[in-house]
């Protein structure tokens, strides 16, 4: 299908461009306007046209739940939120530690035919942290990286060997920096956790893991993507590591970027998240680091958790929230609050996130025709019951956060095919 989108405002974070224009696509890619003969035209009526969002951490099902569930509803949620590419973790049942399972997941996702799903494979067999998984076969099957998911590696020797092995073949290892023994609490250590009597996760849980990891990276030369940093101290260590030249990238979740532990309020299970929400100074440091590019990407940290697993006492509730439909608006909201241009605000969910994957997300000819058309002026309020995700639980619901968000998706294209709107 040769489609011409006319009368749009093109915002391309790759170039910083924010100007009226038209865009042509053919055979799943963006093509030059010169000499283009469209089969179909679309009048965008001045709406914003941006590259499709790349979400580096979204679950299609609750952690540990069956491999089959969730694909359809969560991918419909993704395209409604403008997410055209998403990376999902391997900690399902069964764990994605064999190429056959990766094939099956990719086949199921392709059959649904909405966003492109890029799985992460297990770094160790069964995520047990003892024996290496078949990294080469997993990557050959389509995994974009290898990870331990939420399972911190207790055995540093195994992590060292895993990084050595991955480095031999240039595989990227995705790790959430969390110390296996210090990370057992349910809320960020601090005055709020102390007051509410909730077991605390100290900042040390992140910094001790980062110190260990950076030391192992120096020894092995492995390339690492750090998932969901949560603390000011963690950001400071990341900045040093990047300055030193270590091959490291990192992301932050929309929850850590916008909320703090006080949003737990009176034990609200929607604010039970992993990593836990930290304090104001941490949020400020994460925002500054995302703005300056020390943090490369903003992720939804989407996890569809059903109501039964959330209407429980705070510590017993499953961590996580549905957020993939909010990622775009939360990026724009952050941009508005921080005084950024729209191109700057969108970079961590498009161009910069794609760069972590070694991919391209832009409006340049040759780039994949993964596109989102949106009404940037529209404001809306989040209602849990209106979410497409099967989880329907979010700390950003208006009655909880009072947040009114900018940006409404009008249409989403994946590889030139309209999948939403």
């Amino acid at each position, binding site marked *: 299908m040769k489609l011409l989108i006319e009368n749009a405002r093109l915002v391309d974070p790759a170039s910083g461009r924010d100007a009226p224009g038209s865009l042509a696509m053919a055979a799943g890619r963006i093509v030059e306007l010169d000499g283009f003969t469209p089969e179909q035209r679309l009048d965008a009526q001045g709406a914003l046209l941006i590259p499709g969002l790349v979400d580096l951490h979204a679950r299609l099902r609750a952690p540990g739940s069956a491999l089959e569930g969730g694909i359809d509803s969560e991918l419909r949620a993704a395209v409604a939120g403008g997410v055209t590419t998403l990376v999902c973790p391997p900690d399902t049942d069964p764990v994605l530690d064999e190429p056959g399972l990766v094939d099956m997941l990719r086949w199921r996702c392709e059959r649904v035919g909405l966003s492109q799903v890029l799985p992460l494979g297990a770094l160790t067999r069964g995520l047990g942290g003892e024996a290496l998984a078949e990294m080469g076969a997993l990557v050959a099957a389509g995994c974009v990286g290898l990870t331990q998911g939420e399972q911190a590696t207790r055995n540093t020797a195994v992590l060292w060997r895993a990084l050595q092995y991955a480095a031999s073949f240039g595989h990227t290892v995705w790790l959430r920096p969390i110390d296996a023994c210090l990370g057992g609490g349910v809320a960020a250590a601090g005055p709020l956790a102390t007051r509410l009597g*909730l077991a605390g996760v100290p900042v040390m849980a992140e910094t001790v893991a980062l110190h260990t990891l950076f030391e192992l990276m120096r020894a092995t030369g492995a390339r690492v993507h750090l998932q969901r940093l949560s603390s000011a101290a963690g950001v400071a260590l990341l900045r040093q590591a990047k300055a030193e030249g270590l091959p490291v990238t990192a992301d932050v979740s929309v929850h850590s970027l916008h909320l703090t532990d006080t949003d737990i309020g009176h034990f609200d*299970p929607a604010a039970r998240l992993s990593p836990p929400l930290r304090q104001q100074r941490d949020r400020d440091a994460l925002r500054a680091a995302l703005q300056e590019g020390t943090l490369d990407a903003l992720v939804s940290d989407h996890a569809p958790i059903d109501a039964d697993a959330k209407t429980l*006492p705070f*510590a017993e509730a499953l961590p996580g929230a549905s957020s993939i439909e909010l990622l775009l608006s939360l990026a724009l909201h952050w941009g508005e609050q921080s005084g950024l241009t729209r191109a700057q605000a969108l970079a961590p969910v498009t161009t910069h996130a794609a760069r972590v994957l070694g991919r391209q997300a832009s409006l340049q000819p040759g780039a994949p025709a993964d596109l989102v058309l949106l009404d940037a002026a529209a404001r809306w309020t989040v209602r849990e019951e209106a979410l497409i995700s099967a989880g329907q639980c979010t700390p950003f619901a208006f009655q909880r956060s*009072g947040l009114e968000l900018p940006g409404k998706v009008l249409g989403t294209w994946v590889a030139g095919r309209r999948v939403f709107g």
Partner: protein
Amino acid sequence: MLSRRHPQLNKNGELIHLLSIEGLPQSVLTHILDTASTFVSVSDRDVKKVPLLRGKSVFNLFFENSTRTRTTFEIAAKRLSADVLNLDIARSSTAKGETLLDTVANLSAMHADMFVVRHSESGAPYLIAQHCAPHVHVVNAGDGRHSHPTQGLLDMYTIRHYKRDFTQLSVAIVGDIVHSRVARSDIHALATLGVPDIRAVGPKTLVPGDLREMGCRVCHDMDEGIADCDVVIMLRLQNERMNGALLPSSGEYFQHYGLTEARLAKAKADCIVMHPGPINRGVEIDSRVADGPHSVILPQVSFGIAVRMAVMAILAGNEA
């Protein structure tokens, strides 16, 4: 952020659930203590009953075992002429896989008027209060490490009984504060009632520095911690804390923080010694102190019944 009304007050600021001392105004605390004083004499009568809760059903929902607390609530409810049902849920429904809220929904359908809830997880009574029928009142009888408001109130009643004025007092709370719902309730209550000097005393493993933000002075030295104080509240050291990463042994704990007569001599001459019970003799407190002239541990238990009667009577009179 939107302001979120405190879940234990109705729109007139009246108490509809008692979930935590935190967030309650001084007037509400004082009202409970004043009401309790009118009930103290009921226990001395030949007929130890008043008809305030006649025809009402009070369900004791103990998801965690506690014979003593449950018994005092049962006595308090019976002295108010309520029908009392004790459900030892730790061993029944939830063991069969029923969820907390299903259990609560089932009991609501049995026309309960009040739930007295003990649970091992911080915040569980909030969940119940948010999901039970609007006419049901919830009393937190201890949730995880978070709160034990009736214990806090009976401690305040005891302090007021012996010391009268809160605004000149120095109060030391000694022991495992990080895991103690009693300590949290006491700290909030003392601060709300105007106590200028609240000290949290214990090793760093049990007394986190974040307590300063709750208005405490943090002391790791016992002699400094109880020097010239008017009230010493000793906390029970749970068995599972005695030999692990938090403390080397109960013997070493007693060496550093055990309340002995010699140590108590550093406090004011008319100091009172309190303990939420049950006491570990020779672990946190020496028998000569526990049974000595400064100890008010047994009066605390008696006052506890009057305070729980007051809480239940006040809740029953307010509507959501």
